[in-house]
């Protein structure tokens, strides 16, 4: 469906989805932890706004509840929990040095093109006006995955995981006008439990290796000692 035949509300949905994709890029390249948490909160708010606008434009009243749930969980509760964790782990001023940020951004651009290429045959099947968003949501999922691969800091990896969940939710809203309420509540609860477990893990990791740099988990303590002895 071309943009010129859409109503203003439907165009607004596309605009919000494009902004959510842009925030994925910002999240990927944001070295400051607290700023990244804020970006994640904004992305959650945008996904909630997309859900709300789809509900308005498509008369799908059950989506109002999903929008409310997303807003409360993704834009408020989880960012607040992450922020509290960052404060308790004394990571508020933590700045990660990113290796080759430009290259990673370009890889993310390639992922966007790839997800468009994957989605093209599906788009030909014909869906509602939201079908164009499926490629965007797939790209958000893949960029979240890229962030988990590329970041070394454990909290940033969790942010990547959570933004993947944002992408999945966006895909569900755009492809099928939302999941059944039971599934949605289940997923929301899962994400919340995952968040709590991540919090416990952060403390465990820090206690055992005295840092949240996950790359250091790859090294065995013995090897380090041998290297030090040899050097």
């Amino acid at each position: 469906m071309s943009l010129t035949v859409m109503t203003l509300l439907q165009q607004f949905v596309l605009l919000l989805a494009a902004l959510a994709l842009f925030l994925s890029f910002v999240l990927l390249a944001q070295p400051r932890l607290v700023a990244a948490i804020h970006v994640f909160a904004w992305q959650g708010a945008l996904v909630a706004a997309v859900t709300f606008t789809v509900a308005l434009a498509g008369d799908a009243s059950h989506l109002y509840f999903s929008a409310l749930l997303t807003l409360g969980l993704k834009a408020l509760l989880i960012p607040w929990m992450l922020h509290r964790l960052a404060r308790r782990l004394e990571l508020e001023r933590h700045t990660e040095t990113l290796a080759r940020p430009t290259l990673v951004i370009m890889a993310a651009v390639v992922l966007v093109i790839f997800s468009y290429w994957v989605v093209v045959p599906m788009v030909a099947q014909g869906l509602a006006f939201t079908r164009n968003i499926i490629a965007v949501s797939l790209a958000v999922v893949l960029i979240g995955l890229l962030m988990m691969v590329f970041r070394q800091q454990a909290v940033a990896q969790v942010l990547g995981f959570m933004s993947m969940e944002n992408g999945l939710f966006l895909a569900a809203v755009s492809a099928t006008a939302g999941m059944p309420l039971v599934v949605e509540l289940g997923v929301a609860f899962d994400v919340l439990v995952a968040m709590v477990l991540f919090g416990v893990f952060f403390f465990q990791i820090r206690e055992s290796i005295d840092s949240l740099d996950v790359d250091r988990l790859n090294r065995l303590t013995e090897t380090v000692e041998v290297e030090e002895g040899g050097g």
Partner: protein
Amino acid sequence: MLSAWLIALLQALLCAALAPLLVGWLRKVKARLQNRRGASVLQPYADLRKLLFKETRVAHTASPLFRIAPYIVFVATWLASATVPLVALDLPTAQIADIIVLVGLLALARFFLALAGMDVGTAFGGMGASREMMISALAEPALLMAVFTLAMTAHSTSLVSVMQHHLADGFLLRPSYLFAFGALILVAVAECGRIPVDNPSTHLELTMIHEAMVLEYTGRHLALMEWAAQLKLLLYGVLVVNVFFPWGLAGDFGPVALGLGLVAVVLKLGVLAVVLAVGETVLAKMRLFRVPAFLNLALLLGLLGLLSHVILEVGT
């Protein structure tokens, strides 16, 4: 046909006449924001007049290129600004030169500006030239990405077609236009040497870029260089306001339409200058080595504009 060319000529003259006014207004707003009264809005005209009548001195080591460069820079920038529809839409100048030519003319001006900076052989000139080339090498791809986004929407690289297409579509929320708008703003700030990238109102040795290149110029040469810089700011301003907000541009050459077009473009540029002044007051100048990251953001926005046009806006 003759009257169309006449209006095109008048519009080019108007560009040159309005450029110092835009800078004067920008300085005035900035001064008010900093609790100063500031100089008169017409001060840049007085400065230009003073420089034009002053004696022109040239360094012993300067080659002929040093003397020619101000004229080339000024004429190339002026020609570039003449190709952008300022008041009226359907002009013959815009038919013979599209956006790619515009980018090329600006590149020509920049090339001679950098050569002139290096010509005398002072340390500052060379430093300024190398910095300018670094910034422009990064800004140009971003600018072209933004331009291609616009061109893909209108199926044409002509600025007039882009604006006509936009006017014919009416009010649409295009994600690609939003991204291209962001990219163009960032590029304009970098190319015109405004505050997050370069500070136009200082001659601080370690940070200046544009001022370092024109340090050796005096008299009418300096006047032309300054005027060209003002024209460039006007050009980018007109590009931003008339491509993204083309409402008010005169469709025909009647006196009423032209008058309305003039009032509309002056108002739009005035508002843009206020936004720019607020931005310059709020932001601090960034380190030179942060500029590549800044321009990478512009390139990313341009790329996202292209992609979101293909993904979201083209229906099958």
